[in-house]
C-alpha cells in the first residue's frame, strides 16, 4: 500500500501543528465557535449530540495492521474503546475531547493517517473498490488513481471553499462496488478498443435531499490528463455552483440546471487551455504510485492450491460452507480468495468495532492477509488476499470474534447511519431499527432463502445511510416529536444504479419492522425462480407491495 514519502509526512505533521494552534485559540476563548467551526470542520471535527466527533480519513478504505492497532490504541486512550466505520470508508470516534484532538491527530500522523477534509465544503475522503487489486474483473487498480486524487485534492488552494462538499469515487472494475454513480464525480476505469486504459468521468450523482444518478461527461479520458480534467471541472463548479441555497449547492444541481452538454462545453474549454500544463501527470509519478500498490508476494499456485470457492472443506461443516458461499469472493490470483468480515452480527451496531476487535482483526490480517485490511462503503471489513487453504482457520478465528456472520448483501447486512443516537442533524434513530430488523430476520437460513437484499437506513434526509440506494430504503422522519419511517423500494447502488421510490405514507416506529416483513413476504410470493428482490421489484413494480402494505380501506361502510 502507499507509503508516505518525506513530503507527504511533512504536510500531515504541519497540519497537525496548525490545528493544534487553532484548538488552543478556541480553548483560550480567542476565537468564537462561529469562527472555529469552519476550521475544525476542515479537520473532520464535528460537535454532535453528546460530544465532539472526529472523522478519521481512511483513503480508499485501505488500512495496514499497524494502522488498525494504532486506531485501537487511540480509541482506548482518548475515547470509549470503539469506533464506527462509515459509508465513506472513514472511522468515526464518538467521544474525543476537543483539548485532546491535536494529540489524537499527532498519533495518527505517526502511522500516516489524518483527518484532513473529512468534513467541510471541499473534497472528502476519496473512496474506491474494496476489492481493488484482487477482483477478478478488474481492469486496473483503482487505489492508484484514488491516491493520486487524494494528493491533488488535499489542501487545494483554489478549491478549499467550494459551494458544498465534494465526493469522488473510483472503480477499476465494470462491476461497481464503490457506488460511483452516486458521487459528485464517479470515475470508471475503461480499456479502449486499442488497449489504452483511461477513465470514464461521471458527474452529478449524489444522495441527500435530491438524489441523482451521475451522468457521463467524458466517455474516455487518457490517464495523464486526469488531474487537469478534474481541475477544469472543479473550476467551473467553484464559479457556477449555487451559493445562495445550501440545499442546491451540490454539483448535481448545477448539472441539472445547466444540462450535461452545456457543462461539458464549459469544462472542455477550460481543460483545453490547461491540459498540457503542469498538472499533466508525468509517467514517472504514475509509476511511482503504481509500484506502491503492487501485488503482495502471493505464493505460486503449486503452494497455494487453487480450489474453486465452495469446494474447500465444504463437506466438513455446513456453517463454513454457508460463510464461504456468502462472504468469500473470487480472487484473481489462483489459490487465493477475498474474505468479507461482517460487522453486522445480530447484537452489533452496524459498522462499529471495539478496540479489542481492532487488535484481533489486525492480528488476523497479519496472519492471513499480508497485514492489510480494507473498509467497505457497506461498513464491513475485507481481507483481500487470503489463501484458500487458510479459509477454514480464518473462519474459525473470525467466529470467535463474532465477525463471521454469513450475511454479506443479505437483509441483515444493513448500511446504517448513526441517527439520533449520536447525530445532531438526525430526525429519528436508525441503529435500533437496524437491530430490530436483524433480530426479526435472525434465522440465517431464512436470510439465505430471501437472497440478496440490500437494506439501508438513514436517520434524516441527508441520507448518510444511502437509503435511496437501498433495495429497501428506510428514512427516519420526525412527526411531531414521534419517530416515523418512510420506506423506499427499488434503489440500487451498483452499475445499474437506481433511486428508490417512496412506497407510501411513513410507518410508526413500532410498525416499521412489520412493514419490512410484509415487503419481504410479498417478494417471496411473487418471485420467479432465481429472481432477486431487485429483479422482482423491477419486473412487477410497486403495486403488489403497496397493496400488501396499505390494504384498501373498506368503503362498504361509508
Amino acid at each position: 500500500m502507499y507509503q508516505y514519502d518525506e513530503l507527504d509526512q511533512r504536510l500531515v505533521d504541519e497540519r497537525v501543528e496548525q490545528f493544534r494552534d487553532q484548538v488552543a485559540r478556541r480553548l483560550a476563548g480567542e476565537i468564537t465557535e462561529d469562527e472555529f467551526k469552519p476550521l475544525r470542520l476542515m479537520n473532520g471535527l464535528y460537535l454532535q449530540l453528546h460530544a465532539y466527533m472526529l472523522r478519521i480519513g481512511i483513503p480508499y478504505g485501505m488500512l495496514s495492521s499497524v494502522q488498525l492497532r494504532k486506531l485501537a490504541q487511540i480509541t482506548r486512550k482518548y475515547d470509549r474503546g470503539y469506533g464506527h466505520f462509515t459509508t465513506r470508508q472513514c472511522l468515526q470516534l464518538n467521544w474525543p475531547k476537543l483539548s485532546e484532538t491535536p494529540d489524537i491527530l499527532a498519533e495518527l500522523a505517526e502511522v500516516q493517517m489524518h483527518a484532513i477534509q473529512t468534513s467541510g465544503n471541499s473534497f472528502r475522503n476519496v473512496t474506491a473498490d474494496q476489492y481493488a487489486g484482487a477482483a477478478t474483473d478488474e481492469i486496473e487498480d483503482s487505489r492508484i488513481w484514488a491516491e493520486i486524487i487524494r494528493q491533488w485534492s488535499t489542501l487545494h488552494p483554489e478549491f478549499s471553499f467550494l459551494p458544498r462538499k465534494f465526493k469522488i469515487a473510483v472503480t477499476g472494475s465494470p462491476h461497481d462496488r464503490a457506488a460511483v454513480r452516486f458521487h459528485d464525480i464517479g470515475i470508471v476505469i475503461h480499456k479502449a478498443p486499442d488497449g489504452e486504459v483511461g477513465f470514464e468521468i461521471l458527474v452529478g450523482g449524489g444522495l441527500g435531499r435530491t438524489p441523482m444518478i451521475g451522468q457521463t461527461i467524458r466517455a474516455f479520458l487518457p490517464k495523464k490528463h486526469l488531474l487537469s480534467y478534474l481541475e477544469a471541472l472543479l473550476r467551473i463548479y467553484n464559479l457556477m455552483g449555487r451559493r445562495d441555497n445550501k440545499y442546491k449547492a451540490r454539483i448535481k444541481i448545477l448539472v441539472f440546471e445547466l444540462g450535461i452538454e452545456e457543462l461539458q462545453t464549459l469544462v472542455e474549454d477550460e481543460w483545453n487551455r490547461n491540459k498540457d500544463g503542469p498538472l499533466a501527470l508525468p509517467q514517472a509519478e504514475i509509476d511511482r504510485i503504481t509500484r506502491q500498490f503492487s501485488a503482495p508476494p502471493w505464493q505460486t499456485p503449486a503452494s497455494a492450491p487453487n480450489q474453486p470457492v465452495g469446494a474447500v472443506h465444504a463437506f466438513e461443516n455446513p456453517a463454513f460452507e454457508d460463510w464461504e458461499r456468502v462472504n468469500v469472493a473470487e480472487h484473481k490470483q489462483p489459490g487465493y480468495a477475498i474474505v468479507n468480515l461482517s460487522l453486522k452480527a445480530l447484537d452489533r451496531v452496524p459498522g462499529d468495532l471495539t478496540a479489542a476487535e481492532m487488535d484481533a482483526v489486525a492480528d488476523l490480517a497479519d496472519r492471513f492477509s499480508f497485514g492489510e485490511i480494507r473498509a467497505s462503503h457497506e461498513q464491513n471489513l475485507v481481507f483481500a488476499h487470503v489463501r484458500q487453504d487458510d479459509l477454514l482457520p480464518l473462519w474459525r478465528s473470525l467466529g470467535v470474534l463474532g465477525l463471521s456472520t454469513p450475511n454479506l448483501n443479505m437483509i441483515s447486512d444493513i448500511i446504517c447511519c448513526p441517527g439520533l443516537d449520536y447525530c445532531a442533524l438526525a430526525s429519528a434513530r436508525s441503529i435500533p431499527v437496524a437491530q430490530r430488523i436483524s433480530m426479526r430476520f435472525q434465522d440465517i437460513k431464512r436470510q439465505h432463502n430471501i437472497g440478496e437484499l440490500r437494506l439501508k437506513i438513514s436517520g434524516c434526509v441527508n441520507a448518510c445511510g444511502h437509503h435511496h440506494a437501498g433495495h429497501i430504503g428506510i428514512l427516519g422522519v420526525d412527526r411531531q416529536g414521534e419517530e416515523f419511517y418512510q420506506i423506499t423500494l427499488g434503489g440500487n447502488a451498483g452499475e445499474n444504479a437506481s433511486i428508490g421510490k417512496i412506497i407510501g405514507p411513513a410507518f410508526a416506529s413500532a410498525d416499521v419492522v412489520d412493514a419490512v416483513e410484509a415487503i419481504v413476504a410479498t417478494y417471496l410470493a411473487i418471485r420467479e425462480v432465481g429472481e432477486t428482490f431487485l429483479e422482482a421489484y423491477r419486473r412487477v413494480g410497486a403495486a403488489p407491495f403497496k397493496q400488501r402494505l396499505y390494504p384498501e380501506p373498506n368503503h362498504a361502510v361509508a
Partner: protein
Amino acid sequence: MTLLVYTANRVSDGVVVFLAEDDGWLEIPRPSGVIRGADMEMRMKAVAEAAEEAAIVVSPYPIEVTDEGGEIRPVSLRERIRAYGPSIHPEFAKQWPIADKGY
C-alpha cells in the same frame, strides 16, 4: 406551565451540560436550574450567554422539561437522548438505568 432548563455542550470536551442556579453547568439537570418566573429567565439567559462568550459552552439554548418529584426529564426525544446518552449504549447512561425508565 412550560418548564425550561438551559442546556449546551461544554467547549473543552463537548459533553452535554445543564445550567443550575448556583452550581453552574452540570451533566445532570437539577431542579434549581428549572426556570421559574421572568426574573430567573433573564438571569439564566444572561449566565448562559456569558458562558458562551467566555468559551465555556457552545450555543446554549433552553429546553422543555418536566419535574417529576425532583427528577428533571427533558420532554423531546432528542433532548432525552442528549441527557441520558445513546439509547443503544445503556452502559453510558448518565442518570438512571434506561431500562427502567426508557426514553
